[in-house]
């Protein structure tokens, strides 16, 4: 459910981007209602993205037919910012594509045109300081594509830990597990007591 929640948030950001920069989706008009499935290999997750003419819809856990299915690692996918890279990545077998090549190209093109004041936009969600920091990080990602993968995941990690408080530090995880074990014991004891009471 956390994944679904994050995907819902990502969908909101995309749709926010649409409102802020109407040109962004112009190329997508031609492919509206087509479904692009994106499989991120290192996460073992498939997402589906579709533009309905009014807004984006983004789903996780997707198992339906799509018009185009691409499969790659997250690092490879971040190279797609450059639409011309698509065929090169396929040739190098870094990226698998099944279905409509044109659909993937159109999305890649439209996302590379993406020109948004992310700071202003995200500050609505996260508060000014957090947004500023995030944008700095994203700029790094764009200029230093080589290390894109690690920085992107750091950014997401930091963002999640500090701003959204969804993912957790390993230490917190250990502590959490200990707590759960305790809680589970308590629950079992409580359950026994309730059963005893009910049995009387």
């Amino acid at each position, binding site marked *: *459910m956390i994944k*679904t*929640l994050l*995907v*819902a948030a990502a969908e909101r950001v995309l749709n926010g981007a649409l409102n802020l920069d109407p040109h962004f989706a112009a190329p997508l008009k031609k492919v*509206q*209602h087509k*479904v692009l499935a994106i499989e991120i290999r290192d996460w073992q997750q498939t997402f*589906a993205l*579709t533009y*309905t*003419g*009014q*807004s984006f*819809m983004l*789903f*996780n*856990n*997707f*198992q*339906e*037919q799509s018009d185009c299915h691409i499969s790659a690692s997250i690092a490879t996918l971040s190279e797609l910012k450059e639409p011309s890279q698509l065929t090169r990545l396929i040739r190098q077998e870094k990226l698998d594509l099944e279905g409509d090549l044109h659909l993937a190209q159109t999305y890649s093109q439209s996302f590379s045109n993406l020109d948004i004041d992310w700071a202003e936009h995200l500050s609505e969600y996260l508060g000014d300081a957090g947004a500023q920091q995030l944008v700095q990080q994203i700029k790094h990602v764009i200029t230093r594509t080589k290390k894109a993968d690690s920085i992107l995941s750091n950014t997401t990690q930091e963002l999640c830990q500090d701003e959204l408080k969804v993912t957790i530090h390993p230490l917190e995880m250990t502590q959490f597990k200990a707590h759960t074990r305790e809680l*589970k014991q308590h*629950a*079992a004891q*409580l*359950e026994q007591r*309730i059963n005893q009471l009910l049995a009387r």
Partner: protein
Amino acid sequence: MKESQQNTTDFGYKTVARDEKASMVADVFHSVAAKYDIMNDLMSFGIHRLWKRQAIACSGVRKGHRVLDLAGGTGDLTAKFSQLVGDTGQVILGDINDSMLKVGRDKLRDLGLVNNIEYVQMNAEALPFPDNSIDVITIAFGLRNVTDKDAALKSMYRILKPGGRLLILEFSKTDSEALSKIYDFYSFNLLPSMGKLVANDSESYRYLAESIRMHPDQETLKDMMENAGFEQANYQNMTGGIVALHRGFKY
């Protein structure tokens, strides 16, 4: 599950005459219609949106489809489907209750969704459509209110096109005892009080809690779908089984 042969049925934990249940359910939803959306968010802490999102991801709805959002109430699913089916498709928001339909219609109109949605009052047990005429049917948090569930499932099967599918999103049985005790406490103590506070109507919310407990569990509902003719019936649990998403196909 041989309720079709009897003259009484459940209404929450009460037993009532079969022909009275529909109008008693109607009263509940007339009474909650205006506050329905806000109560949904409060009662589920907003999680109902994620459950519905998952249903849409599994629906396979595409451009040009004809979709029935049955017991659709205030139209959360209809709003998404309307965008997915586009100009060439159609979504029918079907509900037995005109108060709920009206709230739904006003809400969707405010969202600017007007072109491809139809609002039809209907009873799930006898759907007013020809055979093989609908691509996808969803019924979200609606089936437990239906008196004759077997008749409703058969009716849904009849109107689906071959290749079509049914999705049932409904409260179900959690297999964790601890979770189920917390959940019981929540729904029988806190929920009616919240209902009283926000909608000034604790009785209706007590009915909701009771009707959830009376609803068939995951496996039973799957069997009922198969009895009605559905193939490849299966389900996925969400939030520890508090909610289950059943899916079945007609070939």
